[in-house]
C-alpha cells in the first residue's frame, strides 16, 4: 500500500515538534531536579547487596563505580569542595566488587588522605582502604608503599609508616627503596630528604601519567622549600655581618655568600622581599610549596586529574 502523503507530512511535523518540546521539558526537569533533589545519594549502600545484584558481572560494575568515584572526586575537587561524604562509600563498593582493582587503592588513597583542598581529608579511611587492598592483594608492594606514604605524609605516624614499608619490602619483586625507607624512617623521619626519597619512589614506581605529574609537582615544591630555607638563612647571615637586611641577591653575591643569582626549579629568579623573606615569582606554578609565597597568598586548587 502506498503511504499517504498528508499523513506522512503531519506525522513528520508532529515528530519534530514533539522531539523539540520534550527536549525543552527535559531541560526544565533537569533544572528543577538539580535545585530540589538531594545531590549526594547512594541508592544502594551495601557493597554486598550490589555484588549479589551484579549476577556475577561484578568486574564491569566495579569499573562503573570506580569511574563514578573519579567523577565525584574530580567534580567536587574542581569546585573547591572540602566535604566528600560519598567518596569513602564509593571506593568501598568499588573494591568489594573487584578486590583486585589496584588502581582504586592507588588513586583512592590519594583522593581520600590529603587535607582539603588537595583531597578529602580522610586519612583514616585511606588507611582502611589500603589495608583492605593488602589483604586482597598481599603480593602487590605498591599498596604497602601507599599505606606507608599515608602514615608518613598525612598522619605523621612514622613508626607505622616504617612498619608498612618493612612489610612491603618482604614482598617478592618489591621496589628496593622500600627496605631503605623502612630502615631510614627511624633516624630521618620528618626530614626533607626523607620526603624527597618518597616522592622520587612514587615517581619511579609508576607509569601512570597523573601520579607521575603529581609526584613531580611535589618534588619541585620540596626543592623550592629547601631553596627558600637556605636563601633565608643566607639573608640572616648577611644581616648578622652587615647589620641590615640585603635589598637584593646581588648584595649576597657581592659578599661571596652566593655564587650566582638563585633561580627556582623552573628557571625563574627568586625574589628577595623585605626582612630577608624569599619568594618565588610565580607561586601558582608550585601548588604544594609551604614556603616562598607572598603574605596573604591564596593557592589555587591544585590540579590532580587530567579532567581538572
Amino acid at each position, binding site marked *: 500500500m502506498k503511504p499517504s502523503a498528508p499523513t506522512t507530512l503531519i506525522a513528520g511535523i508532529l515528530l519534530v515538534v514533539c522531539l523539540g518540546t520534550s527536549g525543552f521539558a527535559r531541560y526544565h526537569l533537569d533544572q528543577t531536579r538539580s535545585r530540589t533533589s538531594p545531590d549526594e545519594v547512594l541508592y544502594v549502600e551495601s557493597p554486598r547487596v550490589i555484588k*549479589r545484584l551484579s549476577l556475577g*558481572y561484578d568486574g564491569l560494575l566495579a*569499573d562503573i563505580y570506580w569511574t563514578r568515584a*573519579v567523577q565525584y572526586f574530580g567534580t567536587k575537587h574542581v569546585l573547591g569542595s572540602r566535604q566528600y561524604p560519598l567518596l569513602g562509600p564509593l571506593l568501598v563498593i568499588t573494591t568489594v566488587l573487584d578486590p*583486585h582493582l589496584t*588502581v582504586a587503592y592507588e588513586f583512592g588513597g590519594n583522593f581520600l588522605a590529603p587535607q582539603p583542598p588537595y583531597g578529602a581529608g580522610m586519612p583514616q579511611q585511606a588507611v582502611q582502604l589500603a589495608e583492605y587492598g593488602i589483604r586482597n592483594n598481599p603480593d602487590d608492594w605498591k599498596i604497602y608503599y601507599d599505606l606507608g606514604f599515608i602514615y608518613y605524609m598525612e598522619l605523621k605516624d612514622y613508626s607505622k609508616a616504617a612498619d608498612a614499608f618493612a612489610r612491603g619490602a618482604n614482598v617478592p619483586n618489591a621496589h628496593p627503596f622500600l627496605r631503605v625507607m623502612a630502615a631510614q624512617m627511624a633516624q630521618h623521619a620528618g626530614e626533607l630528604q626523607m620526603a624527597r626519597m618518597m616522592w622520587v619512589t612514587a615517581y619511579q614506581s609508576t607509569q601512570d601519567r597523573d601520579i607521575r605529574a603529581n609526584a613531580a609537582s611535589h618534588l619541585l615544591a620540596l626543592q623550592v622549600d629547601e631553596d627558600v630555607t637556605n636563601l633565608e638563612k643566607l639573608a640572616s647571615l648577611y644581616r648578622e655581618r652587615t647589620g641590615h637586611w640585603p635589598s637584593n641577591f646581588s648584595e649576597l653575591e657581592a659578599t661571596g655568600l652566593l655564587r650566582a643569582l638563585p633561580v627556582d626549579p623552573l628557571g625563574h629568579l627568586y625574589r628577595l622581599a623585605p626582612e630577608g623573606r624569599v619568594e618565588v615569582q610565580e607561586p601558582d606554578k608550585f601548588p604544594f610549596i609551604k614556603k616562598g609565597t607572598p603574605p596573604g597568598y591564596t593557592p589555587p586548587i591544585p590540579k590532580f586529574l587530567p579532567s581538572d
Partner: protein
Amino acid sequence: MSTRIVHIASNTFREAVRDRVLYNLIAFALLMSGAAVLVGQISIGIERLVVVNLGLTAVSLFGVVIAIFIGIGLVSKEIEKRTLYTVLSRPVRRWEFIAGKFFGLAGTLVVNTAFMAVGVFAALLYVSRAFHRADAWILVALYFIVLQFLMITAIALLFSSFSSPLLSAVFAFSLFVVGSFAEDLRGFAALARGVSHWLATGAVYLVPNFASLNVISSVAHEQPIAKQFVVSSSLYALLYTGMVLCGAVLIFERRNLK
C-alpha cells in the same frame, strides 16, 4: 550426527539469521567503540579493564538474551505455525528435532560470539596499542561463555518443549538468575540443618552453576585459569547440557501434539 539433525540445525541457523538475530552485533560494535574511546577520558587507569569487562559482559548478556528469547520459541513456534507437523510427518524422530534445534541455536550463538570476539580484540588493540600474552586468556573466558550458552539454550529448549513462550522465558531467566547465585546456594546448604540441608544440597546440584563459569574478572586482571578448572568446567557444562536435553527429549517424546 545424522544428516536429519544437520538439516534441522542449518535451517534453525538460517531462520535465526533471517530473524535478524545478528543485528545485535551492530549494538555491540557501537558499545565497544564508544567504551574504547570514552573511558580513557572519564576514568583513570582502567581502559584495558573496561574493554575486557564490558566486552565479555556484553558478549555474555547479549548471548543469554538471544539464547532465552530464541530458545523458548524453538518448539512452540513450530507448533503454532504448524510446521512441526510437516517435519514430523517425514522420517524425522522427535529427539532428532530437539537435537537439531539445539545445535542450530548453539551454532548461531557461536558465530555471534566469534564476531563479538573480533570486536573485543579490536577494541583491546585500540586501547593497548599491542596484544600481550595475557590477552590469550580472553579466549578462555569466551569459551566459558559459550559453555554457558549451551546450558541456557538447553534450558530454554526444555521449557519450550512443554510450556508457552512467556512462561518459558520466565522460567529460563529465573533459572539463569538462580544459577548465578549458585555459590551462595552452596553456602546456604552448608549452613542449613536437617531437611533444609538436604533440600538445599539437592537444589545446589540441580540448578545450573553459572557462577563457576564466569571468569571475566579473573581474565580482566590477567590471572591465568588452571587447566584442570577448564577441563572440569567443560565436563560439567557438557554433562549438564546433555542432562537437560535428555529431559527435553523425554518430555517432547511424550507430548500429545494433536
